């Protein structure tokens, strides 16, 4: 198991490097000059060159990348002139908020999806099955920002039940109430995909020979179901990494609409203001979080499912 962990971590490192290279390139090769916001309109070419030089903008790309990664590794992601804050500071605060939102959404979406998928898979062709398939089709097809707007209209606008946005973290109850709508709108797609995968897995396993064997051995239906669920859960775990990624990425939309002070909102504001240092930092941190989450999911799966352990080593 320790060898497996080391191996998976070893495989993740080149991915992490690749991710950082792409984030760096995206924000470096953008059209328009990066110093535009820093240089006065009426600057002479010499002044302009001096500023470019001080920022290292004329160095060859690999050198600039190394400098950037070196700083990033020490926790220095640059300084946002527009926000007048260290990017790392801005991200540090936002990361926790996004993480809470994504985690609650993932747990909620996956748990609900498992339940629905299990019900549909064990009652194939019945009304429940059809209802779940309609629900998951809807969940796959509705954009989270559209759902968010509808939820806002109903619960915050019409019924006045829940806050429309923002969050007061000093009051846990209020924070929890603020979490409800973002979680609902973000996790619907997670629920839909999980339900589909679970249902397919259950149907698959129920058709397997070993289930007949279990029944023949005289196990109670409840015990049989337990075995079935355990065997059907592996594909759910496989997709759950991607799901959390979708939630992290989707946070940009959900947080924007609900003014949830996480990385997504930060990224949205930075994009609107063309504050590239913050865009770069936020993109990097979200992507890195995703890589780490996937790594953890892989390891968790290996711990649970011996078949996966076999193929990975």
């Amino acid at each position, binding site marked *: 198991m320790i060898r497996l962990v080391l191996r998976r971590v070893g495989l993740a490192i080149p*991915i992490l490097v*690749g*991710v950082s290279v792409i984030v760096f390139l995206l924000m470096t090769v953008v059209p328009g000059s990066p110093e535009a916001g820093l240089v006065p309109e009426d600057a002479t070419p010499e002044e302009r060159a001096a500023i470019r030089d001080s920022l290292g903008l004329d160095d060859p790309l690999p050198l600039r990348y190394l400098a950037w990664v070196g700083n990033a590794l020490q926790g220095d992601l640059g300084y946002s002139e527009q926000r007048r804050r260290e990017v790392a500071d801005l991200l540090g605060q936002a990361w926790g908020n996004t993480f809470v939102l994504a985690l609650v959404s993932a747990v909620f979406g996956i748990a609900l999806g498992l339940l629905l998928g299990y019900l549909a898979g064990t009652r194939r062709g019945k009304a429940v099955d059809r209802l779940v398939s309609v629900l998951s089709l809807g969940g*796959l097809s509705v954009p989270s*920002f559209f759902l968010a707007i509808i939820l806002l209209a109903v619960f915050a606008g019409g019924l006045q039940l829940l806050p429309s946005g923002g969050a007061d973290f000093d009051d846990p109850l209020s924070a929890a109430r603020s979490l409800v709508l973002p979680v609902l709108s973000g996790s619907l797609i997670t629920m839909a995909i999980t339900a589909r995968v679970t249902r397919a897995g259950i149907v698959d396993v129920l058709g397997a020979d070993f289930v007949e064997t279990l029944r023949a051995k005289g196990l109670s239906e409840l015990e049989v179901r337990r075995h079935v669920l355990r065997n059907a859960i592996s594909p759910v775990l496989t997709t759950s990494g991607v799901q959390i990624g979708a939630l992290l*990425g989707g946070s940009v*939309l959900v947080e924007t609409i609900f003014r949830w002070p996480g990385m997504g909102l930060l990224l949205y504001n930075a*994009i609107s203001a063309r504050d590239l240092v913050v865009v770069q930092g936020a993109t990097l941190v979200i992507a890195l979080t995703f890589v780490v989450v996937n790594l953890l999911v892989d390891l968790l799966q290996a711990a649970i499912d011996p078949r996966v352990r076999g193929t990975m080593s």
Partner: protein
Amino acid sequence: MSQATVPVLLPEAFGAGTTDADRQAAAKLREEWNAHDQSVRAQSFWKETGKRFLRNRTGVAAAGIVLLLALAATFAPLLTPYDPLLGQPLDRLQNIGAPGHPLGTDEQGRDMLARVLYGGRLSLVAGFVPTVAAALIGTVIGVTAAMLRGVVQTVLMRFMDVLYAFPAILLAIAVGAALGPGLTNTIIAVTIVYIPPIARVAEAATRRVVVQEFIEAATLSGASRFRIARTQVVPNVLNDIIVYASGLVGVAMIIAASLSFLGLGSPPPAPEWGYMLNSLRGTLSTTPLVTIIPGFFIFLTSVAFNLASDALREAMDSRL
């Protein structure tokens, strides 16, 4: 009527036998079969897939909706007299069913029907073009990697892994943010997001195909690797790629709408559905039904694409 076609099993014993009499009898049998065989249909995979798809009522209905939306968007000028960009300030915030404005008007008095129809052009293009482009590029990458193996495979597929390590929407937003707003840039961004998963599907399918004996047979005939890829491999991985890619069109539309919602799509006042939804948020309390129209159309198109894709998958899922 909806029974699946059973492949016609053709008789086994043509040309069996060791004596001349046997052989002549067999030759006669072949002649007879030649005549009879004119009535046996050749069962091409694509034709059979098409037939099975057409038997699936949900799939046909979904494909019909997509077609209808596409036609309506294409012929928008014939369906509405209004200009989607020009508003009548006096007609602001008309509700659904208002005279002259069946879908109401937006906050600037622009006719919603016109905006939805014209906007359909942008949304459908943003759903289709990146998927098709990514399918082409991803297929080339995946097939090349799996056929050349070695360093080429490692470099290409590890690069795909890195791109795949980004959450899809985040990568699209990052590319969109780097390139700036605009429909072309949205298309480029979504294409880049879709290339890695399609390349993976193509690579996996190619690895399954290249170990089959007909590839060795083609190699023995002296065909170049490019020719084998083109004539033997691609036709056999295409169904996997089409099934997978067809499921991406709806999501592509949603991602494009998300980018435009965030202000990274076609610059205003272009009637892109995602942007319309965002700009109408303020009118939610006055004309809520009008506000959700663009969202409804995104939803409808996406559902139609997903249903059509499911039907396509079922139609292709045969032992052929």
